[in-house]
């Protein structure tokens, strides 16, 4: 049974008040991590630096200093965040042994508020995947059924939170990589508006799509973590100002008169019937509580997936160019020529999925193919953005499933990359449009596997999105 944690704000205020200590919380988290090794959700140990930070925070408290809203709260970061105290390798062999000389802005923000990173979570290498089976350090096992995947690519983070190894974890979401594993594992996963959290110090996948967000046990915790790490960052030119009013505490919005649009295309018969019926029950409850429900069409939904699998690999192929074995990470000291050095470092260092995406990306950017693929995909992206804008003129929020299935069996889709890509059909649109979206658990299927509900809002409506999610949480299942 998963370990329990109090709400994050409460934990921090207890540390500040002296009724518990940072050291105690960190030790508890480290102990739980050690006991849950069989799930393989954590791949890098940061216990030494975490205990040192905990001690410093406890000394601050003892001196009567105010530490911050996350005082002493342990957390786990996905392994694509650069964090001091250990390796950062994005679960890829090509970065094995890489010790970051600087730290992600998001980590700095959380540390400034008193949070302590205790470990790094397993993931699909370079965040390429939807099952965590693409990790070079072994698959993560689902917290409720070890024969199943936890989703991906932030599978380690979602599993760790579901297992209660820490009160919260950080993930990254390029095409659903926070929301889908959160949905599979029955926890809350937030992908904020593009640019709301700095990408500086986070290993890039698709730079125009990548978002950083929390995975938590409840909506309020997500709001608090977002509140701490959001806003403009001089190290990331794509960041935006945070809401002046902030994101925490969430405001209990009355559901009455909220206009919620159900995305028609997301309820096709390719979505498991258990998922459809669970969501329909949630929608009925919303209606019963006074929300105005309507049905909204996003005709470009299917095109969005195709367009995502052009734009994303294009950016991946570009972003992975720096891993060339010349300055850091995996290299081949036996190579006798420059070409051999490149070919062996990248050939041996990258896994299958990274190579597949590099090949696709290189192809769609090649002269003669650029217009037919990349440029056309960018046009579709604009069309999709327009469809969302139109939709948000008539409704405040959009609602739908996260994925067509609940957690699937390990190995079930790993031999068929296309099947794996198709599972992203309902999550990629939010990334292409840069809008905030989250996953909140609303039930289980006939096997007892969690089902997540996806909520989306217009750009910069993150606060409203969290408020609504809070209300849904309160409705109960």
């Amino acid at each position, binding site marked *: 049974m998963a370990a329990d944690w109090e709400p994050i704000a409460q934990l921090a205020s207890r540390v500040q008040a002296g009724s518990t200590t940072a050291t105690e919380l960190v030790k508890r988290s480290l102990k739980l991590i050690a006991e849950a090794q069989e799930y393989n959700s954590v791949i890098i140990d940061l216990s030494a630096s975490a205990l040192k930070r905990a001690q410093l925070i406890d000394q601050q408290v003892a001196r009567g200093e105010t530490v911050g809203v996350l005082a002493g709260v342990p957390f786990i970061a996905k392994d694509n965040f650069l964090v001091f105290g250990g390796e950062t390798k994005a679960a890829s062999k090509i970065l094995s042994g890489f010790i970051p000389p600087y730290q992600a802005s998001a980590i700095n923000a959380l540390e400034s508020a008193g949070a302590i990173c205790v470990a790094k979570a397993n993931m699909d290498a370079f965040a390429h995947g939807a099952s965590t089976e693409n990790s070079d350090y072994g698959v993560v096992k689902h917290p409720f059924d070890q024969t199943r995947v936890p989703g991906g690519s932030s599978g380690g983070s979602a599993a760790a939170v579901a297992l209660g190894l820490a009160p919260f974890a950080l993930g990254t979401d390029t095409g659903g990589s926070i929301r889908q594993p959160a949905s599979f594992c029955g926890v809350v996963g937030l992908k904020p508006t593009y640019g709301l959290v700095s990408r500086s110090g986070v290993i890039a996948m698709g730079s125009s799509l990548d978002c950083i967000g929390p995975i938590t046990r409840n909506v309020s915790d997500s709001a608090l973590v977002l509140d701490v790490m959001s806003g403009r960052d001089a190290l990331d030119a794509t960041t935006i100002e945070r809401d002046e009013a902030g994101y925490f505490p969430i405001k209990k919005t009355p559901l009455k008169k909220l206009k919620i649009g159900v995305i028609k295309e997301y309820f096709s018969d390719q979505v498991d019937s258990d998922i459809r019926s669970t969501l329909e029950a949630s929608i009925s409850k919303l209606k019963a509580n006074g929300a105005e429900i309507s049905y909204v069409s996003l005709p470009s939904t299917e095109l969005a997936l195709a367009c995502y699998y052009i734009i994303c690999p*294009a950016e991946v*192929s570009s972003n992975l*160019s720096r891993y060339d074995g010349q*300055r850091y990470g995996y290299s081949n000291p036996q190579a006798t020529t420059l070409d051999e050095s490149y070919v062996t470092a990248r050939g041996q260092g990258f896994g299958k999925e990274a190579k597949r995406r590099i090949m696709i990306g290189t192809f769609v950017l090649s002269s003669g193919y650029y217009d037919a693929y990349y440029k056309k995909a960018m046009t579709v992206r604009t069309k999709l953005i327009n469809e969302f804008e139109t939709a948000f003129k008539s409704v405040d929020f959009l609602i739908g499933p996260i994925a067509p299935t609940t957690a699937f069996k390990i190995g079930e889709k790993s031999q068929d990359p296309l099947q794996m890509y198709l599972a992203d059909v309902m999550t990629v649109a939010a990334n292409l449009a840069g809008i905030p979206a989250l996953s909140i658990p609303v039930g289980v299927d006939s096997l007892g596997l969690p089902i997540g509900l996806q909520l989306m809002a217009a750009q910069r409506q993150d606060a409203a999105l969290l408020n609504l999610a809070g209300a849904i949480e309160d409705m109960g299942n």
Partner: protein
Amino acid sequence: MSHKYRPTIGIECHVQLKTKTKLFSGANNDARNAEPNTLVNHIDFGLPGALPVFNREALQLAVRAALALKSEPELFSTFDRKHYFYPDLPMGYQITQYDQPIISGGQVNFKLDGQAKTVGITRAHLESDAGKSTHPEGSAISLVDLNRAGTPLLEIVSEPEMHTAAEARAYTEELYLLMRYADVTEGDLYHGNMRFDVNVSLSQTDELGVRSETKNLNSFRAVEKAIAYEIKRQSELLDAGKAIIQETRGWNEAKQKTVSQRTKENADDYRYMPDPDLPPLVIDQAYIEKIRAELPNLPDFWRKELSALQLDEDQIQLLLEANIDFEAIGYMALIKAFLSKVDLAKTLVNWLVNIEIPLMRSSENSVKLISSARNQLYSDVMQLSKSGQLSSTGAKELITKLLMEPELPSDITSFAEQANLLQQSDQNEIETIVKRVLDANPNAVKDIQKGETKAIGFLIGQVMSQSAGRANPELTRQIIEQLLK
């Protein structure tokens, strides 16, 4: 050179912008005296997770460059990634402006052998430089210095509108002056602050021939020589009935020839794509106007200012270059202060061109005088010359001596006196010497009395020599003529 073919030349110039920090990182941009790999941060090194952040100072310089090129900067421009693998390119791509550059259009005007020429500018774009690779001879290793990685460049692309090596050289020289005067670059050619790639093709028709591109030339002389070499090489190939292949060549300074580096067949596909880390550059008209108002005077402004002096092109070029190289002195402003009297200004230019500037450029660093003292120095020397106390030789020596003083002496006349530079203008003293010279040269005296006035010059020379060069030559002439009447 064969005249059967008409050469066409286009030039790409990489201008290193004089920003304090790099184009996309906070690392120091001035690598001229730095140890290798000391001016490198996580962005320049291409560490995982590092993001480029645009340096607005480079934008300001690009706008200045646009105005100097008689162009208007684009209000909206974007950055793209250009991909290739090389150890001095840490991210595996260069950030450049491929699709929508900051400058479209423009022109450079200059004179060549008295004729006005105009070369159009196709475009100019911002981009980051790569690091520097060196391959020590006889060694199996290569060295990479990333100090230069991320340095901001403005690549200025000319229209293929030049037709001789001399014209191309004149274009690059004027471009250099424009970029220096617009205060866009340090313009240190030795350190590669401006590098030129020259495209040369030959044709007998209106259609352009196949071109070669000779890259990385870092002097005007190399530009001229490489083009001349290419014209000759391609002419010979065409004469022999052979085809020109499109290729990239390099200039071998030691052998004074271009050498093939890469042909089109193995050219890279750069897979350009918009850089998702960098939002578009958006500027407004007010921003441009502010920069326009603060734009320093350009070479043409000074050419106009000095037009009354009717100087030749070489003199103006020399002054324009010295003016910018020794900015603290400000030669143009100095000359301008004397312009109300054209003959004085001409004298000043003469002294600057023949005395001061060569001294300033000599490697001995003998000039010590503070910059602000120039006006006083030249006014005083002119005064002494005008009053006849100083010969032209004396003036030259006095200027040279004064330039070596850290400050002007309080009394220049007594300084000149002590240095034995003043002319002897005492009638009696000169007369004494003249009489002595006349006595010693009876033949010359006879010649003069016969009407051969040439001999007067000889006698003046003798007087000058006996007075150690100090006798006022005009006064000496008058006395000789009077005594021999």
